[in-house]
């Protein structure tokens, strides 16, 4: 079986580290010398892991409603504007309250792409399609589309929003399914 992009990336980093460790043993410096260009770089001895704590308190209802199978947006009470991603403030009418509304599930694909070269933190997935669809109430949503064959995808095709569990992480999110 061919290596996943994640395995390739990790293997590459391990090779770099091994090279630097060898240099530390021999000359006491974590140096990596590029065999093609003979250029030396310092292999960083400090590591920074980034994992953010993202505030969702004000839009908590959106997340909690996913387990009820609902995808919510907010609506400016005064102007009727529907906001997705949900936000609790209306810039077009700052004094307006917002209320939660359920989004319709059916829509049409506006555009799409199939991601083959993935970011590191997505490199454990198979190729995935990201699309934007316009729902029947005119709101546009960006999400994965459950179809990765470009021949079976086209702009204007009918799709349906589904709440799904994203594996292997095991958390609720939403995606489009061709109808």
């Amino acid at each position, binding site marked *: 079986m061919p290596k996943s*992009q994640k395995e390739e*990336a990790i293997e*590459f*980093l391990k090779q*770099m580290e091994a090279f630097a460790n060898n240099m530390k043993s021999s000359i006491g410096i974590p140096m990596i010398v*590029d065999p093609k*260009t003979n*250029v030396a*770089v310092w292999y*960083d001895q400090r590591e920074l892991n980034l994992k953010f704590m*993202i505030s969702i308190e004000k839009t908590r209802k959106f997340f909690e409603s996913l387990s009820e199978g609902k995808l919510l947006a907010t609506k400016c009470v005064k102007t009727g504007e529907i906001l*997705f*991603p949900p936000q609790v403030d209306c810039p077009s009418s700052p004094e307006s309250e917002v209320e939660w509304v359920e989004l319709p599930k059916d829509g049409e694909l*506006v*555009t*799409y*792409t*199939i*991601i*083959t*070269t*993935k*970011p*590191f*933190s*997505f*490199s454990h*997935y198979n190729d*995935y399609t*990201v699309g*934007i669809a316009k729902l029947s109430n005119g709101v*546009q*949503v*960006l*999400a*994965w589309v459950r179809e990765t064959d*470009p021949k079976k995808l*086209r*702009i204007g095709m009918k799709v349906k929003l589904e709440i799904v569990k*994203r594996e292997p992480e095991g958390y609720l*999110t939403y995606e489009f399914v061709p109808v």
Partner: protein
Amino acid sequence: MGRKVAVVGIGHSKFGVRNDANIAELAWESIKQAFESSNLEPKDIQYVSVSNVGGWSGEPLPAVVVSEYAGLTGKPLHRVEAACASGSSAVFNAYNAVSSGQVDIAMAIGVEKMNESPTPTVVEFIGRAGNYFWEFENFGLTFPGYYALYATAYMSKYGANEEDLCQVAIKNHYYASMNPKAQFQRKIDMPTCMNSRYIAWPLKLFDSSPITDGSAAVILASEEVAKKITDSPVWIHSIGAASGSANLSKRNDFTGLEAAQLAAKMAYKKAGLENENTAKYFDVAEVHDCFTIAEIMAYEDLGFVKRGEGYKLAKEGQTYIGGLIPVNLSGGLKAKGHPIGATGVSMVAELTKQLLNKADKGRQATIKNGRAIAHNVGGTGHYAYVTILGLDKPKD
């Protein structure tokens, strides 16, 4: 209207994998040339704007590190970020400082060291450059992916195909082969482009700009100072700037970048030009071809041709020297390389060279109108800057 502002000095490093120089050393390559070309010294500079996006590189405060290395400590200094348009943002800042009368001499320095991190990390950082939680966290978009959303919509609406996109790559590699500062010196042909693997369908590896290290610098001066130090100032006629929504799903149209259209309109208005059929005003253009589709949209967003006609310019070779308007004679982001924070500054440096007939052999435009245009987009139309340069002093 503020004071008139001229480009009086330019510098440009070799773009590419530049592991041989740290961020300050790399910036200095351009800063030094900018001083030499203007006969100015660090003590003459009154204001410094450094563009660097960073994240992938080690220095969290690159502006102070670059400034100290270049003998600029003590000057008013800041770092600007407008994603891939950061460089134009730095130029805009320096321009405003001179135009407003706050200072007489300002410097914009763009530098980026993308190769300090492994490629998957860089792909991750650029992929996060949108509306992080709603586009990346759950859906893992990549930078090619964002532009691919535009490519799919554009091709479907106007009937452009993947070969039309590849024409842009072929042209830009052709001109880069004559630019010693470019990352890629190799010409490519249609099969090379068409047979390259998909990175974000319908975009392929050869539709995409590379991961690049590099720097560029420009020195801007007021009319009085410019007169004293150079016989050949290149004037900034106008800069238009605009922005687009963070989240792509908030946009109505995926066949052009609204921010770029707004920035172009503003730049044309300030320069006293019409905003249709605009190719006739310019001898040469540098446009933001982070992906081939981006260059095609730029032709339209800048008003060179009508909406839906941009891909035909590529197909017919109208953006080579001798065509309707030569575009990206530097090789563009596609083949010169795209060190994010340096790109916008590089465009102004390149067009200054072009207008002064100092470009390398084979890639010098014929200068008749004495006017050039730079189009620099940050993110996926999140930021946009359009800068018009000219040999004639701008009108009052």
